[in-house]
């Protein structure tokens, strides 16, 4: 048994760094605080890699399966003997994998931010928030029980809120941060309800007990039926609602595009690589329950994922803000992961989807972070977010160009880049499960290739735009992470996920199925080809197409008016017909009662205050009169 107790430092170190930078940051030189934050993350990255190595290659396996190891656990809040909330560190294949993903991407983003955020006001604040985020995210993935996960889940939400609203003087950023917080918080309500139902039925919070496929927890609650579904199914659907919010799945996706108001490194870290996959992680964490006890909930996961991936891909084709394109692409890719989880089963070859999902999570973190950081470099050079104002940048930004191209090829699923492998696994899993889902994913694969290369060609090729000042390649602090992540994107596909991260911890035999792989590559190439024709040079085709499908284009461009729908529902219906009367009641009846009591008391005291005049004789007069009156009362009236 290997001692993993040092892993407590993995979440703790960023927390200490957050305290340090948050409290003393303004006293340090900005550069120093940046370096401190980055250094802390560097240590964590090293620790994570050591942990991953030790876990995957030296820890003992039982029955050829990786074991869940509780490296550390202590009771945090003890309510009763049975009801207590623990904090601890749980190591299992997915949490270790997430450690690697988070620490790598976070470290890269830290380095990148040193260059990107240079000379920004609130540099040390930025790093403090990044540390807070790293702490929360690491705590989330290492959680030993669902309640700890929920706590860190909310912390992640808070740090996301803080980072989106980093430019707090910008009204749009403030709006976006509020929106993100409220939408995800609303979804988390479902998560909390789910937790309560789940733990009420299973009498435990602990993941190991909960997800033990042979354990009693899974069997419980299946018997109780509510509205035609078992209680377990309901609880898992509610839990998934939290995942939907965090992972920006339809219908809670509206916050993610707006969240791009935050600084670009934040978008790369939080809104592409780590936080938004928390929902996927959550489903994966609870996967045995989904698969064995709540197949209907798993179906919901699959369909939500599939719909979101298609929906987001269509919108992505029409957007012009490059960060928004990437945001929709992220949604689409997460939809993929959800779908893969949704079509998976527990154990054996059925678990292909689970493995594929985790695999895709891993590779997606690499290439999507790379894309965002690349986009950041472009924005940094051009000072614009809109690809209509860009073009021909390949001459000015060679490093960015190459890495961006690699990332685009990866996401389009071109072999032998990593995206190909993971996406192929997902498609295979979908193929074996549900042909309709498979068809949707095929379409999305083509769309993905198309919109990514639309982006790529418009930025780096296309028309030769004249810039106010010549765009310059970013400094080394920004390009080095790009290169590292590009290397990761290219080679992470060879990581044998089927041996490492599977639903039951055992090795999963899988190979590339040519019948699926070849068409998927072809459709990717098709998408690229279409994009090439349309955007390689300035051409009238896109406009004509837009004119042809006028309404479709307009709907997609306006994101299918989901935001407007939300606004309509909240403002016109909820605010007007529920909140306004409630507010009126609160202001006039509740407050009014209290105010009346207060003002009556006050008036009354002002009136009677004069009694306390300090005039001895007045007191004596009152006293004597009172005494006489009492005498009259008792002697004559009270017979």
């Amino acid at each position, binding site marked *: 048994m290997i001692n993993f107790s040092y892993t407590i430092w993995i979440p703790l170190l960023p927390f200490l760094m957050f305290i340090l930078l948050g409290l003393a940051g303004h006293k340090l030189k900005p550069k120093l605080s940046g370096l401190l934050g980055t250094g802390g993350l560097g240590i964590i990255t090293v620790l994570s890699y050591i942990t991953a190595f030790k876990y995957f290659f030296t820890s003992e396996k039982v029955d050829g399966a990786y074991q869940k190891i509780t490296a550390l656990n202590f009771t945090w809040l003890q309510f009763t003997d049975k009801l207590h909330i623990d904090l601890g560190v749980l190591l299992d294949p997915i949490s270790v994998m997430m450690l690697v993903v988070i620490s790598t991407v976070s470290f890269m983003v830290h380095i990148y931010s040193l260059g990107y955020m240079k000379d920004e006001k609130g540099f040390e604040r930025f790093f403090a928030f990044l540390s807070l985020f790293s702490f929360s995210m690491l705590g989330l993935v290492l959680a030993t029980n669902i309640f700890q996960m929920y706590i860190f889940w909310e912390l992640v939400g808070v740090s996301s809120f803080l980072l989106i609203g980093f430019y707090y003087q910008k009204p749009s950023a403030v709006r976006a941060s509020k929106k993100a917080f409220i939408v995800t918080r609303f979804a988390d309500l479902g998560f909390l309800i789910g937790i309560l139902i789940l733990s009420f039925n299973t009498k435990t919070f602990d993941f190991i007990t909960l997800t033990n496929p042979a354990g009693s927890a899974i069997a419980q609650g299946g018997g109780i039926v509510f509205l035609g579904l078992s209680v377990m199914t309901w609880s898992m659907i509610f839990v998934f609602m939290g995942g939907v919010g965090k992972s920006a799945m339809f219908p809670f996706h509206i916050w993610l595009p707006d969240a791009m108001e935050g600084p670009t490194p934040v978008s790369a870290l939080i809104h592409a690589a780590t936080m938004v996959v928390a929902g996927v992680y959550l489903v994966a964490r609870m996967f045995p329950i989904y698969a064995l006890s709540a197949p209907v909930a798993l179906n919901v996961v699959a369909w939500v994922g599939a719909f979101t991936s298609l929906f987001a891909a269509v919108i992505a084709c029409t957007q012009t803000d490059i960060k928004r394109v990437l945001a929709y692409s992220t949604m689409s890719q997460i939809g993929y992961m959800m779908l893969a989880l949704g079509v998976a089963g527990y154990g054996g070859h059925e678990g292909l989807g689970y493995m594929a999902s985790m695999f895709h999570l891993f590779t997606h973190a690499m290439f999507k972070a790379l894309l965002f950081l690349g986009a950041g470099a472009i924005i940094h050079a051009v000072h614009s977010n809109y690809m209509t104002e860009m073009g021909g940048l390949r001459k000015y930004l060679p490093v960015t160009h190459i890495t961006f191209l690699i990332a685009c090829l990866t996401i389009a699923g071109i072999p032998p880049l990593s995206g190909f492998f993971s996406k192929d696994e997902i498609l295979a899993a979908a193929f074996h499960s549900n042909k309709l889902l498979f068809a949707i994913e095929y379409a999305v694969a083509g769309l993905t290739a198309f919109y990514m290369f639309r982006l790529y060609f418009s930025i780096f090729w296309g028309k030769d735009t004249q810039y106010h000042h010549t765009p310059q390649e970013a400094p080394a602090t920004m390009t080095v992470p790009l290169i590292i992540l590009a290397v990761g994107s290219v080679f992470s596909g060879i990581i044998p996920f089927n041996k490492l991260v599977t639903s039951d911890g055992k090795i999963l035999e899988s190979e590339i199925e040519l019948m699926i792989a070849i068409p998927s590559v072809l459709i990717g190439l098709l998408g690229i080809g279409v994009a090439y024709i349309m955007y390689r040079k300035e051409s009238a085709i896109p406009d004509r197409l837009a004119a042809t499908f006028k309404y479709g284009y307009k709907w997609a461009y306006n994101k299918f008016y989901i935001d407007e729908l939300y606004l309509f529902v909240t403002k016109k219906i909820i605010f007007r017909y529920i909140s306004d009367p409630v507010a009126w009641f609160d202001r006039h009846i509740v407050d009014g009662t209290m105010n009346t009591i207060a003002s009556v008391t006050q008036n009354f005291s002002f009136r009677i205050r004069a009694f306390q005049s300090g005039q001895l*004789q007045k007191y004596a*007069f009152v006293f*004597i*009169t009172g*005494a*006489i009156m009492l*005498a*009259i009362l008792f*002697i004559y009236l009270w017979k």
Partner: protein
Amino acid sequence: MASIMFILFSAMIIVFSILTVTSRKILRAAVYLLFVLVSTSGLYFMLNYQFLAAVQLTLYAGGIVVLIIFSILLTSHISQKFESSGWKKNIFSAIAAITGAILSIITILDYRFSATNEAAKEVNMRLIGKSLLSVDYDGYVLPFEVISVLLLAAMVAAIVVAKKGAPKTIGLPKINQE
């Protein structure tokens, strides 16, 4: 004879009492008070309490009134006339006092006092002295001791309070002086 004395004393008491509380010259008020006290001691004589009457004369008439006159001399101008207090205050106070008085008088007149048939005890100095120092059932040594302590305390207190130059620990606080 007795009733004439009583009428005389009571008339003096009532008249001078009223003059005491209404006179607008303070020294005169003090003198009227003196008359009241002397008349009261006359009543005590009438009731056969000679010792108490003597005490009344020496202590009240001789002691307290002199003390009051001293303090008047210390704090007021003798010739100074008070401005009359507000008529409202006077009227209301009078109403209260008269109501109370009427009430009490009615009660007194209503009540049937019943005297005992026990033989009256002759009050002489020997009896008073013995009773004051006796620990028997009829003895008053405890109140006597208490009153002696009280007198001592009052003496010390009067000196300490009236002493000059020690306002830090006694008297009114200085809060509003600034």
